[in-house]
């Protein structure tokens, strides 16, 4: 019942914060957000699950309750975690708390609504990562979008309305495509449950029937494509990424942190859970185009980042690039590939969160994010700047920081993949991303942080307040700890991903 308690506490916190007057909202929200942090850490400490939740592993903190019975199908309240979802839950709670603190400076209107929505989103995110019944999962999945829509639309930048609607409609249409694909699959299975484990195991047993004129093979392929498209938008991968930079640029800092840090991971998490767990053979059949998309995302995303002048846009596009690695790790379908992809979700969540937060701190002080508008900031706000530099190096995959671990696991996993033809070639191409990422981050840093001090906007620069710096430092510490001791998450991740390899007879070598 700990998951229910966690969800209930978070929802309740959201309601409480909604009801508070503005002046109490920020600190109360922070205080209340520590409850889910503590809860998730408790789950982490007492985690006893083993194996993959969908393929018959031992699910931790599991609850199954009947919910609805409709049209011959049973809908359940079914939650639980395994080694893939637990790290993501921890990431969610941790990042939300920090994002809430980072909102103290930039958010100065309608505070109780803002923090309430943040907590509401956190609750739904926890739901996404713990739900094991499709409908419960889908409700949470979509419910994440609504607070996000408001957070961008109400507190965003000048073009926030365009960005919010684009984000909302784009990702919802993607959800619809995914939903249709999944429904085609489920109605063609001889089961009456929407429990994800049941569906996975039925598919693995080869029980898929016809869907109208579609034979099982074709159906699986169509469903795989629909699911992939649906989740690809969320990730996002090229060419369905264009909502992301708009959303990021317009979103206020804490919202960008959540968007890049956790929301994008929903896409890759779902890809792992659905496409690569339920339909591994299709994943294998489509390996080359997917790997091509992954490489395209990495390189093209990095090239786009290189062309940007807005610091936030740079970080936004670099997310596209980084998430391409995750796709590559998934498609490789090896131990280190799948595990590395999952690890990279966590790592990128922390690092992109740090980057957005650091850029936000700079923006709070300078009121500009354009590379050309400033230089030499290291002189005036040293702590923030040097943490930003550290974050940038983490982004570049500096060893002993979390990003390197994730990327290296993916690369070393995918290089020898037997599922992906020409795996060394794809891996080698994707790895070139680590050069481009260094290029654009170094260029941007050189021009904004270093050199003689200059600022085009009329603001006095002060050292950033402690509550701006503290979350940065916390994130940096987490990144380093995870980079030095990846086994904190790696072992449980591996425990949950290795069973998947049996679906394709081993994967590598």
């Amino acid at each position, binding site marked *: 019942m700990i998951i229910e308690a966690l969800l209930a506490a978070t929802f309740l916190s959201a309601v409480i914060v909604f009801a508070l007057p503005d002046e109490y909202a920020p600190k109360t929200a922070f205080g209340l957000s520590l409850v889910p942090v503590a809860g998730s850490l408790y789950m982490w400490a007492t985690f006893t699950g083993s194996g993959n939740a969908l393929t018959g592993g031992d699910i931790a903190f599991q609850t199954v309750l009947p919910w609805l019975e409709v049209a011959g199908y049973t809908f359940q309240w079914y939650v639980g975690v395994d080694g893939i979802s637990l790290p993501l839950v921890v990431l969610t709670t941790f990042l939300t708390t920090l994002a809430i603190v980072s909102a103290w400076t930039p958010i100065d209107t309608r505070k109780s609504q803002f923090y309430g929505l943040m907590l509401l989103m956190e609750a739904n995110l926890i739901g996404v990562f713990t739900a094991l019944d499709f409908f419960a999962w889908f409700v949470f999945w979509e419910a994440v979008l609504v607070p996000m829509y408001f957070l961008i639309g109400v507190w965003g930048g000048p073009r926030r309305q365009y960005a919010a609607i684009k984000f909302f*409609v784009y990702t919802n249409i993607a959800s619809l495509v995914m939903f249709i694909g999944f429904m085609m699959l489920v109605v063609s299975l001889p089961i009456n449950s929407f429990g994800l484990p049941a569906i996975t195991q039925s598919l693995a047993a080869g029980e898929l029937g016809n869907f109208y004129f579609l034979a099982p093979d074709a159906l699986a392929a169509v469903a795989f494509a629909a699911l992939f498209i649906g989740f690809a938008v969320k990730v996002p991968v090229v060419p369905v990424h264009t909502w992301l930079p708009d959303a990021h640029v317009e979103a206020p800092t804490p919202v960008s942190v959540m968007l890049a840090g956790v929301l994008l991971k929903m896409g890759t998490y779902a890809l792992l859970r659905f496409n690569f767990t339920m339909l591994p053979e299709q994943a294998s059949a489509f390996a080359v185009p997917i790997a091509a998309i992954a490489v395209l995302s990495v390189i093209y995303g990095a090239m786009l980042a290189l*062309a940007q002048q807005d610091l936030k846009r740079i970080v936004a596009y670099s997310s596209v690039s980084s998430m391409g690695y995750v796709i590559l790790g998934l498609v490789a379908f090896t131990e280190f590939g799948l595990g590395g992809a999952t690890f990279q979700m966590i790592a990128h969540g922390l690092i992109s969160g740090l980057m957005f937060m650091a850029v936000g701190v700079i923006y709070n002080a300078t009121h500009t994010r354009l590379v050309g508008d400033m230089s030499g900031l290291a002189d005036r706000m040293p702590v923030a700047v040097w943490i930003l530099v550290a974050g940038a190096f983490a982004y570049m995959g500096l060893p002993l920081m979390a990003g390197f671990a994730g990327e290296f696991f993916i690369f070393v996993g995918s*290089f020898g993949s037997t599922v992906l033809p020409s795996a060394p070639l794809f891996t080698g191409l994707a790895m070139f991303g680590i*050069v481009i990422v260094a290029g654009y981050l170094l260029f941007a840093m*050189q021009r904004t942080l270093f050199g003689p001090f200059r600022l085009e906007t009329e603001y006095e620069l002060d050292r950033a307040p402690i509550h701006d710096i503290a979350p940065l430092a916390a994130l940096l510490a987490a990144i380093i700890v995870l980079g030095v001791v990846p086994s904190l998450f790696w072992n449980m991740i591996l425990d949950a991903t290795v069973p998947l*390899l049996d679906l394709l007879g081993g994967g590598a070598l």
Partner: protein
Amino acid sequence: MVSVSAYAQAIVLLPFVSFVVALFARDNLPKGGAYSGIAATAGSLLLSLATLAAVYGGRTVNETFYTWAVGTGAQDWTLSFGALIDPLSALMLVIVSLIALLVHVFSLGYMNDEGEEDLPRYYAGLGLFTASMLGFVIADNLLMAFMFFELVGLCSYLLIGFHFREPGPPSAAKKAFLVTRFGDYFFLIGVVAVFTTFGTAAFAGAESFPHLAEAALGGDATVWTPGNMAESTWFTIVGLLVLGGVIGKSAQFPLHTWLPDAMEGPTPVSALIHAATMVAAGVYLVARMYGFYVLSPTAMGIIALVGGFTALFAATMGVVKQELKQVLAYSTISQYGYMMLALGSGGYVAAVFHLTTHAFFKALLFLGAGSVIIAMHHVEDMWEMGGLKNKLPVTYWTFLAGSLALAGIFPFAGFWSKDEILYETLIHGLNEPLLLIGYVFGLLAVPVTAFYTFRMVFLTFHGEPRSDLARDPHPVRWNVKGPLSVLGVLAVVTGGINLVPVKKVLGIKGIDVLHKWLNNDWGGIEGLSSHHYAKIGPYESGYLFGGEAATVIAGAAVSLTLALAGLALAWRLYGVADPAEHTAKLGQIRELLYNNYYQDEYQVRIADAVRDAASGADTFDQGVVDGVVNGVSSVSLLSSERIRRVQTGIVGNYALLLTLGLTTLLVVFALIGGWFQ
């Protein structure tokens, strides 16, 4: 008794602790953290010496002390950190910690006494830099080596860009990191490939990748290769991929361009980078996994050619430079080219020997240059100097020792090591024409080196002072003179650790200490000895004039003659009271050399092209990719506009449309249902 492995870890951790202390204690530290840094590196040096002694006593180490991540199942690889303490790494530990200590001491004079700001940041950077390099040196596997290799890169970025308030250093730091990153890209592919191929990245032991590669070539083991590629081809490719990182870090052609720019960093940092850390890392890496490289003749040939070419190529550019540190920068590139030449032509010991001697004399030269720069109030142009010989005697004499070593003049350290490189290349090249090309490059670089070295010495110290600053230089203190003296001595005597020519010509046994050291004569790790490398290596030795001793003498005579010729020319042209800019006579060639063969230009052009491509991609993304998205929405809205026009607002039209709709349905269903047949 504390284990040697614990020593090794402590050696790395001490400077790291000084980094952490400097980072967090900041302004509360005496001398901005210099003392803690000195204490830490001194501790490291002592422990390194102890380690050296332990290895001398036969106590080597090859053990894992921290498991970073493990796989299970098919990819049951262990990604770990461990210490590999053998004669090579023990020697390198001493070099690195010694130079680091001296640089720390020197920094007291160069940074503290000069009133620099932000000293804790500087000493934190130095500490981390030293720690990273030491970690790299003790690495027992390729992944760990890569990780510390990258950290070294980070530290160079931080230290080169130390003066971030000026426009130059941040740019140079960025370039250094970016260019080496480009090389590391290949290195990383290499690491990944090694894991995939062998399932391990360990350097030593029965389950090490050089050993497995050897076994695979001998048919005693099977390894993964992509697309069933022949093993020898694949090993060559993997070796060359790793070499990418080496070329980047050791500033070999064509990735050498970052190094001269890196002179923007504080001079002690340059000394550290060039002598003992970053640039040395590349060469050290090749030596570390030499057992793998020697399995591939192609890779060896390429290493030799790149090294030989770089040695000559960089030396020529050094000839025309006007700034003291620029000359030294090109000389570094050139000297590391020699080491690569040696490694590529089977001269493992020669390369390590030159690495050692070079570490000392190049550190000496940089610190000497630093002393000059202090004296000259941070003016670096040699044409502003002159006549400093009498004003800075300690600097002059030590600098001269270093210069003689660099130029390869008997009996200074550089002579012995460079001569051995050329000798090894020659004897192996007699059966391998490719190596002979490398030998010729190396030989041609000798007089050029001597020339630019003494051009530098004469311009700086001899003649009449050419500026007011040179007439009244700033004095330097003990903390500058001390390190210079230590290194000056070393530059003179280090050659003595490996008097191979003497042994060969005169037959005196036991004076080729380094040879025996690296040959595991006092103990070492199986498979990591020079004789093992020679056994499995691709080269046969050949001799001129019918004998080993004759070949030694002939080779030494040629190179010494050439060096002296270069020195003489420099004396002739610049050893006068009021030297002129003779380089102007070179005309077009001077322009070419002065612009570094336009290497920077083309690399900048590549960077620009990439940026242009990026803007193109951006335009494409905004216009086409996003255009489609917005287009879908526009088309939907446009059709919406059309559809809603049906509702005209006039009720008569509604009745008409309603009737038409009903009639149409009637007709359609009448036809379908066949009502009126």
